[in-house]
């Protein structure tokens, strides 16, 4: 079983990276690997509750992150500094990731076989 990490680090909607990253991670769930998902930097905004982008014409995909668990993706983390520096708390998020400190992020990254950055 390979340790694979998917990192969401760009804000949603401004570019498609976050949405296509979500498509990728949902597929990964079918492969029975040791998958971790990390939200860091502006990537934390992808799971912010109550976003209203209806005036942009772009599909609102943030609620779809709730499907991760149903796809057997259970290791979900958020970088504390990234979250707090954007004024976010756990209750502001559409899912409940585990809050993780920067040094633990570094350690976890060292253990991975491969990464996907979105």
């Amino acid at each position, binding site marked *: 079983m*390979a340790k694979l990490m998917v990192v969401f680090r760009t804000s949603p909607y401004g570019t498609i990276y976050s949405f296509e990253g979500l498509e990728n991670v949902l597929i990964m769930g079918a492969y029975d690997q040791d998958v971790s998902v990390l939200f860091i930097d502006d990537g934390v905004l992808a799971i912010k509750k109550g976003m209203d982008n209806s005036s942009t014409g772009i599909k609102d995909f943030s609620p779809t992150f709730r499907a991760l668990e149903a796809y057997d993706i259970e290791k979900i983390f958020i970088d504390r500094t990234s979250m707090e520096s954007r004024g976010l708390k756990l209750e502001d998020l559409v899912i409940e990731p585990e809050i993780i400190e920067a040094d633990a992020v570094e350690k976890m990254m060292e253990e991975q076989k491969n990464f996907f950055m979105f």
Partner: protein
Amino acid sequence: MKFGLLITEGPYQHEASDSAYQFAKAALAKGHEILRIFFYSDGVLNSTKLMDPQADDRHIQKQWTELSTSNNIDVIVCVAAAKRRGINDDVIADGFKIGGLGMLTELAIEADRLVEFRA
């Protein structure tokens, strides 16, 4: 070493595809193996045979086609990303194949290093 390449930017706008191509050539020259090259996001636009750059510039699609066919490397264009960008069997060049995202996961499992080229 077994490499996998992931390219997520389109041609010409960003250097990512050029860098990936140079990386692939250098890795092969050093005797490394490239298991698969996967194009995702705007990266799928590298596969269109409709691109027609000026004659004194490099032809990015033809570079990939040549690399793929002469080294027998699997070059995959993500179907979901391709469909929303107008890339299909009518426009895809020789050497590229349209495939599912599962082939990217498989690549991450099998490759010693998955190297991503992006903005």
